């Protein structure tokens, strides 16, 4: 307690140097929480969007399906397994059929993926109700990125050409029934969504699908030959991207923290030289050397405590505000193939705050202790004379 009392008194008495140290350290503290909050917010948003728009509660894949190998799509289809049809009828599974095709927007040719999905499905957030047949036209849905890429909008007509299961080319003009806005690029870019029955007919594959998306209440059972992919598997790439992003931002806030800690280290080194007489007097008045080391170490820790208080004072409202209004991502972020919203809403969990507080306090204490150790070896008579070298 004595060390705390003395340390706080000393640092309050140190004036501008204290203010500078506390300001820099509090900035690092707030930045660390903000960066991690953004990453956590992004992580949660990306997970939520990917689950809601693409993977549901897991997927059952046709044995030949490999999403990274477009050539596999030609063979990656088959009748929905017997045991799964009841689940599809009950709305606990949504079948999706995938085929390669070419689109001809405004006379240009572009490779696309055709994806057939039941218009009445309720597992994914894709607005498939817009695929209900209307006026004899073949409705199609595209995402906002795809619409921008091919310069098409609702009610425009798009010519598609594909090869059916026998390898014969066929073509059809579809009407863009809707353009949906979603943050998951893997259901948007280069994709045209059609009614499942329409695509099955176009390909000559009635009752077939490439994968089945599971909804709430589905339990993978039985050996159907279709592999069930759970969230761990389907979100693995996303998790890796977020982890690498976390590592990158760790470098930034690590640098900030190092700058703040260097300021404290520098202050403590300087203090030990400048306050030699004070150190000698502490010892002359009856403190042990380690008690004096304790004062100087606690001073460093006290900087961090004050920095946290200051950070809470200005960072609390600021971070709360940013959590409310979100953090706009630079334009083009959505084109990087990562599920990322135009705005990320940072999430500041208790774990993040506690970890950051501990990180700042422990590291400030360590950098204060390192120079303070010198006191344990000094000769008090030299200290009283101000002769420490």
């Amino acid at each position, binding site marked *: 307690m*004595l060390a705390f009392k003395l340390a706080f008194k000393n640092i309050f008495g140190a004036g501008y140097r204290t203010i500078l140290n506390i300001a820099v350290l509090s900035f690092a503290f707030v930045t660390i929480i903000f960066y991690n909050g953004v990453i956590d917010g992004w992580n949660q948003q990306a997970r939520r969007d990917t689950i809601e728009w693409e993977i549901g509660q897991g997927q059952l894949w046709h044995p030949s399906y490999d999403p990274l190998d477009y050539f596999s799509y030609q063979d990656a289809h088959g009748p929905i397994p017997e045991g799964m049809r009841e689940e599809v009828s009950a709305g606990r599974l949504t079948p999706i059929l995938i085929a390669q095709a070419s689109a001809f927007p405004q006379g240009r040719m572009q490779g696309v993926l055709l994806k057939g999905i039941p218009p009445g499905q309720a597992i994914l957030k894709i607005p498939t109700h817009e695929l209900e047949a209307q006026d004899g036209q073949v409705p199609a849905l595209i995402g906002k990125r795809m619409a921008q890429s091919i310069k098409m909008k609702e009610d425009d007509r798009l010519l598609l050409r594909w090869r059916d299961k026998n390898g014969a080319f066929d073509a059809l003009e579809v009407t863009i029934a809707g353009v949906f806005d979603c943050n998951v690029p893997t259901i948007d870019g280069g994709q045209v969504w059609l009614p499942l029955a329409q695509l099955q007919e176009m390909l000559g594959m009635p009752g077939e699908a490439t994968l089945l998306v599971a909804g709430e209440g589905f339990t993978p059972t039985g050996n159907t030959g279709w592999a069930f992919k759970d969230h761990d598997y389907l979100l693995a790439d996303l998790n890796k991207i977020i982890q690498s992003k976390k590592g990158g931002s760790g470098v930034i806030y690590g640098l900030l923290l190092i700058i703040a800690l260097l300021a404290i280290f520098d202050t403590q080194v300087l203090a030990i030289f400048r306050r030699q007489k004070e150190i000698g007097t502490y010892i002359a008045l009856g403190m042990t050397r380690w008690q004096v080391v304790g004062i100087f170490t606690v001073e460093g820790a006290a900087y961090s405590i004050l920095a946290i208080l200051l950070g809470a004072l200005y960072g609390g409202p600021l971070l709360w505000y940013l959590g409310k209004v979100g953090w706009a991502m630079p334009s083009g972020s959505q084109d990087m193939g990562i599920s990322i919203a135009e705005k990320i809403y940072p999430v500041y969990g208790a774990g993040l705050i506690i970890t950051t507080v501990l990180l700042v306090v422990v590291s400030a204490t360590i950098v204060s202790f390192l120079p303070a150790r010198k006191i344990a070896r000094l000769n008090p008579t030299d200290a009283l004379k101000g002769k420490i070298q």
Partner: protein
Amino acid sequence: MESIIQIKGLTKQFPVGAGKFTALRDISLEFHRGEFTGFVGPSGSGKTTLLNIIGSLDTPTEGEVTVLGRSIAHLTHKQSAQLRNQHLGFIFQTYNLFPVYTVYENVEFALLLQRLPTAERRKAVLDALEWVGLTDKMDSKPAQLSGGEGQRVAIARAMVKRPAILLADEPTANLDSKNSHHILQTMKQLNEELQTTFLFATHDEKVMGYLRRIISLEDGRVVKDEEIIMDKITEG
């Protein structure tokens, strides 16, 4: 009178480059409770070194120094800190007050280390400030005090714990004549009232006028050790 410091064959050497500098040579002395004694001599004669060893801030190279029954050479850091905290007071030429503390807090510091209850601490601090006549300055910072006031705070800080021995290294070196006499009279009074042993390192003539025993040092040796008769003191 009770003997509280015994020095036998004390030699102190400091390493200087490849060689050694001998600061004290074969010194043997004894001090009793209530003495008002000064070590006098030119700079480099070993006065401060001797005070530092008695104050357990330094250790002898050879010989034996016993303070209040404790052998200085054999004390651990913790034991010597305890000796200083409980029984020794220090006054320095430059006062060595803590600049960020108030006068009250500077004086209270030694008692904080003794972990005395707050009320007891407060009474002792106010008593000490009253001895030195600085009750009205207790909320001031050292920078707001004059040199004489600063040294009086240092005396209060040293005396607040009622030490058996008070070691004063050139306490009047930075003071004018009037303040020097004021300080010395205060110390003399405390010496008589509390029976504290005062040991000075000084070459100030004004201090010598108050001493009852003067030990002259030269090149680390005791060259003269004289008791001063009482009527001479009153003249001082």
